């Protein structure tokens, strides 16, 4: 087990390195950079361009050096928690990000829990009642959840809650708590706003998990050991929960690894539509204004979050199912 753990953690390092290289390449592949845009904007507005200041800023942020050197400088900073400096906000990235990263994590985690809570009973019910009307209904519902895009669902939710209840569901907390430090009131305010984005983001994952659990459990239910257990006189419920259920539990954990990236991705889009105080809206703003350290660090944080999430799910799976450990690295 320890061996496996070490190996999995070690694999994470090259993964993150390559990811950071991809992100940095993408971020600096633009033909123009933030400073060019700044100069252009200033000229367009008829302001006098302070070339000395621009040159100073360029130098300060390492824009006079080749990209490779800048990359190592950036990665080196990331390693000891320095995420760089945001041009637009004139603040260190860490301060700009603030609570947003934690809120993103909270949102993703709640979504995963929601997915579990909903998909678990539905998947088992569908599998044990195969080809019944309720099975058809539930699987169709799952497919609908899978098919309807997050951000459109968010738009529709926004519209109808506005139209029918006259209330705005945007945001992740009451506006008065935006800059307030964490307190009980703020926490409850977040909780009362959290459920809408959780449902919206969770639908797709829930849909795919219902389908997967159903398929997996159905396969197990037809295996010989189930027949044996039944013929020895175990009650159907007991058989279900004693054997096949535990098998599908494994799968349940492993599927998180594949759902998590889409939860985080979808979360970003929904956050933009619902203007949540997570990383989404800030990320898109940073991308549009080519605030590359802010955007790059955001992307890096999101990727790290995903990679760690997948790692945790893999480890949990290895813990649950000894067969996985024997196979070595790749579990999916």
């Amino acid at each position: 087990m320890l061996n496996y753990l070490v190996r999995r953690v070690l694999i994470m390092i090259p993964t993150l390195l390559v990811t950071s290289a991809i992100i940095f390449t993408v971020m600096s592949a633009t033909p123009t950079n933030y400073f060019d845009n700044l100069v252009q904007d200033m000229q367009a507005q008829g302001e006098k361009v302070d070339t000395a200041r621009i040159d100073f800023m360029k130098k300060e942020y390492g824009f006079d050096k080749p990209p490779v050197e800048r990359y190592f400088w950036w990665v080196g900073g990331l390693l000891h928690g320095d995420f760089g400096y945001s041009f637009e906000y004139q603040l260190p990235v860490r301060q700009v990000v603030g609570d947003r990263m934690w809120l993103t994590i909270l949102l993703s985690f709640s979504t995963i829990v929601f997915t579990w809570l909903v998909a678990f009973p539905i998947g088992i019910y569908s599998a044990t009642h195969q080809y019944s009307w309720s099975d058809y209904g539930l699987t169709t519902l799952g497919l609908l959840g899978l098919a309807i895009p997050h951000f459109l669902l968010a738009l529709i939710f926004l519209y109808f809650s506005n139209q029918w209840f006259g209330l705005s569901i945007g945001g992740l907390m009451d506006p008065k708590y935006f800059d307030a430090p964490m307190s009980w009131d703020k926490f409850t305010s977040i909780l009362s706003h959290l459920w809408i984005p959780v449902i919206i983001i969770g639908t797709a994952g829930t849909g795919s998990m219902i389908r997967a659990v159903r398929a997996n459990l159905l396969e197990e239910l037809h295996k010989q050991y189930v027949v044996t257990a039944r013929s020895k006189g175990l009650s159907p419920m007991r058989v279900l929960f004693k054997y096949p259920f535990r098998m599908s539990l494994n799968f349940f954990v492993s599927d998180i690894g594949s759902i998590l990236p889409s939860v985080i991705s979808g979360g970003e889009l929904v956050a933009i539509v619902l203007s949540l105080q997570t990383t989404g809206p800030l990320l898109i703003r940073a991308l549009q204004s080519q605030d590359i350290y802010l955007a790059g660090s955001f992307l890096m944080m999101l990727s790290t979050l995903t990679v760690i999430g997948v790692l945790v799910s893999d480890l949990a799976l290895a813990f649950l199912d000894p067969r996985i450990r024997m196979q070595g690295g790749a579990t999916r």
Partner: protein
Amino acid sequence: MNLQVPFQAPGAPLAHYVSDKPFDVGAVAKLTPAQERIYFASQWRLMWWKFKRHRMAVVSSVFLALIYATLPVSEFLAPYESNTRHTDFIRAPPQAVHLFDEGRFVGPFVYGLDYKLNMQNLRREYTVDRDRVQKLRFLCHGDPYDFWGLIPSDRHLVCPPADGPMFLWGSDRLGRDLLSRIIYGARISLTVGLIGISISFLLGITIGGLAGYYGGWFDLLSQRLIEIIHSIPHIPIFLALAAIMPASWSPILVYFGITLILGMMDWTGLARAVRAKLFSLREEDYVLAAQLMGARTPRILLRHLIPGFISHLIASATITIPAMILGETALSFLGLGLRPPIVSWGVMLNEAQNMNVVSLYPWLLLPVAPVILVILAFNFMGDGLRDAADPYSS
């Protein structure tokens, strides 16, 4: 076995009788014509039979076929040109088509629209004028267009009435007809997925095929790369890639840029599937047989292996098309993807970003409907195809 072997003396040569008469294998167990039809059916025929059993999939395919059939003739089907502005009718509400006016049959018509600017809250108010009965015209002359950019024409299937506008799905902030724009937008929104999927198919089959057949360091490297691409959240990377496309690019270039991005992020799943299939199929007896008969590698690959799982590939490709359509819609919706004057459903939804506007003019959300319908249809069809792809199972 009920063969009667005659009793023989030990050591004597085995009495061996071979009949000269031609032997018909089928004579042992004669198949009825009905059975023959099933047992000798080709793989594709079996798939078709299995696919037909999935009702939703069949309905969805017909729906998709119809929608795709409109693409070449959008100009003819749309009542207006995609960028025709009606400055007198900005954000006009959808009009209903009626058949009867006060109990009298007049054929399809719309009532006239009266426009008034409410000076209190500066809202445009449209009222339906029941006295003005404006009959629709069919196969008539309307906005001129160049059919396929070549043949100038102005023939439309349905035209607005001669004495007024016709906005069956309302109009937008520049007074452009939403219905016409949705019909035009289908062209872009629905082809992005197809081009994207071809790119990802090409990449997936080549990389997955090489990895699966040769294995070794290439396999190791590509697997690591795929794992990395899998583990980073796609949409933020989409956004980043779309954001770096220079603003000076022409819309067509942006369109191809977007399809390229979508294809590049999507090939991993396909490559994995190809590799896994090749790995398991390599060990099959029929491959060994082909090798023993002296077939070369390309022949084994193309003649024996690929036909074995091409149906799976098609099914899994169908399932990823909706993701591509959505990718384009999401990017354009955020203003990072396609830009006007190109019309796509995502570009149209970009206008619906502001909730204050949408709550006043809800018909701006209408492009959501075709997006969701198409995506659902692709999902159902993909489901049916996936079931059909393996016709020999149960």
